[in-house]
């Protein structure tokens, strides 16, 4: 069991910009030093609703990217899908407004020490953390291919400079409004084989991550994924965000996705364990 991300800091962060991009809002915060500590895969936890809000819990958002300009100028960016009350409130806040934010939280994507061929797969707003990851990987001399999927074109988040940072970008939509018609998993095997992929990094809905993991296992490719489980605290104190993960000792434990995740090895996850504790889990009875 790891401790909380050792650089995690709580602060009031001013919104610098908040713009609609397709189905999402791209929001930039002034965060000072925090920017220099965040790694791709980390997330932020933001209090929503303002004073006297009936919403008592923070919301987690993957860090899209950061700009480290020192303590006065550090910026942190996220991509928000207005979904329920909390995320909708956040997308409605104007520049100048300050939100209570904790970052960076959670684990980061593991960066290979050697140049490898990486495939980044994102579903919906799950693409957000992949662009920062892509930059890091490119700087390490990796080849980076990317596949982004969503139900419809408006839900593909792929800004221009993000697109430029990858060697190839394939988009897939269920309704065919952009790119290939279908699901991301329809195109993976081909790309993995053609480009001789060594490692897959993925972020998106749990169902998609699970389907990717099946392919990764079949083709013997390493798979790191950023999971999403409902979180009450984001800092490891509530035990709501757990999922069954097999440790190096072979034992399956209910681990906290906010501390031992969100980034985990795809093959350590006991998939499909929603609403049940898998047999043999430590302490199950």
């Amino acid at each position: 069991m790891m401790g909380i991300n050792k650089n995690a800091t709580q602060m009031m962060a001013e919104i610098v910009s908040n713009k609609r991009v397709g189905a999402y809002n791209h929001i930039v915060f002034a965060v000072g030093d925090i920017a220099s500590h965040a790694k791709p895969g980390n997330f932020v936890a933001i209090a929503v609703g303002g004073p006297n809000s009936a919403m008592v819990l923070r919301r987690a958002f993957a860090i899209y990217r950061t700009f480290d300009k020192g303590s006065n100028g550090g910026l942190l960016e996220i991509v928000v899908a207005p979904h329920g009350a909390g995320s909708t409130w956040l997308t409605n806040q104007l520049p100048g407004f300050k939100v209570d934010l904790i970052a960076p939280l959670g684990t980061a994507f593991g960066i290979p020490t050697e140049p490898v061929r990486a495939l980044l797969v994102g579903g919906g707003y799950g693409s957000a953390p992949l662009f920062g990851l892509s930059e890091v990987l490119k700087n390490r001399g990796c080849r980076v291919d990317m596949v982004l999927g969503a139900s419809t074109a408006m839900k593909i988040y792929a800004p221009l400079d993000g697109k430029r940072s990858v060697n190839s970008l394939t988009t897939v939509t269920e309704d065919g409004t952009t790119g290939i018609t279908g699901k991301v998993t329809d195109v993976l095997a081909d790309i993995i084989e053609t480009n001789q992929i060594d490692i897959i990094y993925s972020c998106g809905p749990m169902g998609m991550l699970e389907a990717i993991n099946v392919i990764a296992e079949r083709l013997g490719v390493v798979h790191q994924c950023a999971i999403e489980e409902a979180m009450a605290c984001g800092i490891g104190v509530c035990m709501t965000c757990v999922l069954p993960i097999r440790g190096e000792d072979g034992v399956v434990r209910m681990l906290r996705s906010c501390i031992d995740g969100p980034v985990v090895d795809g093959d350590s996850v006991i998939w499909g364990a929603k609403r049940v504790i898998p047999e043999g889990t430590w302490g199950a009875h």
Partner: protein
Amino acid sequence: MFNFKTNLGEAQFDNPIFTASGCAGSGRELSQFFELSELGAVVTKSIMLKPRSGRATPRMAETPSGMLNSIGLQGPGIDLFLEKDIPWLRDQGANIVVSIAGESVEDYAVLARKMRAVSGISALEVNISCPNVENRGQVFACHPQTARAAIEAVRRNIGGELPIIAKLTPDVTSIAAIAEEVVAAGADALALINTVLGMVIDTNTMRPKLAGKTGGLSGPAIRPIAVRAIYQVHEAMPHVKILGMGGVASGRDAFELILAGASAVSIGTATFGDPSAVIRIKNELQAELIAHGFDSLREAVGYAHRSEGNL
């Protein structure tokens, strides 16, 4: 000089703000945000005999001014806990209250025996708001007989040393009646209140949102229930010390529980929204007490009960 000291039974504390059981992890996670020794006490998550996976996910649902949880007492079991967590907490200089929970009266007895030899603990919080596997899964604290049996088992096995704080559920017809029973059985103090049984149905899937169906409601939504329970029990037994909890999110809220009769206050859900809530609340509470002209915390305990003549 303002006197912030308090006690629960024989246990002494520098200030009355504690973490709530199950809402502060192992302590390590919060120690990133402040020194644990600044707290009145760290109350550990309820620890059971054996390692325990807890319930399946989803384990939580946000509700208006509150949340439901069904963690199901996930934890490493008492042995690993005593080996890893307690020494670490002691090293931090934290005042420690250990919470224990059992599935049978025998469990409570064994847990108490294991705690007997442990040094550096201020008190034992006995969570009897958990299902009794020997009695159709009914919660110990829901019935006078089972509540009494669990506390008696702890009392007999703990030795004379460690004060026992019995933690009760508000989901009963008369919490004062249960309180009287556990005090008779040997509890030195009472922890009020555990979560309120609730349910959320996800209108998209049209099923209970939590895998465990029902869960415990906590947060500001239940504060009026906590205040009422503390007030009723303090009225019935003014000499029994109460560790109050339920929806406290500010110094004003903590003050409210103290006026109702709490000698110390635990902070649970508020920590999820604000990791350093306990420290903020401690400072706000001290300021409130001073602003109201109190020289000590003790004078304020149960002050709302004074007769109308003192208006």
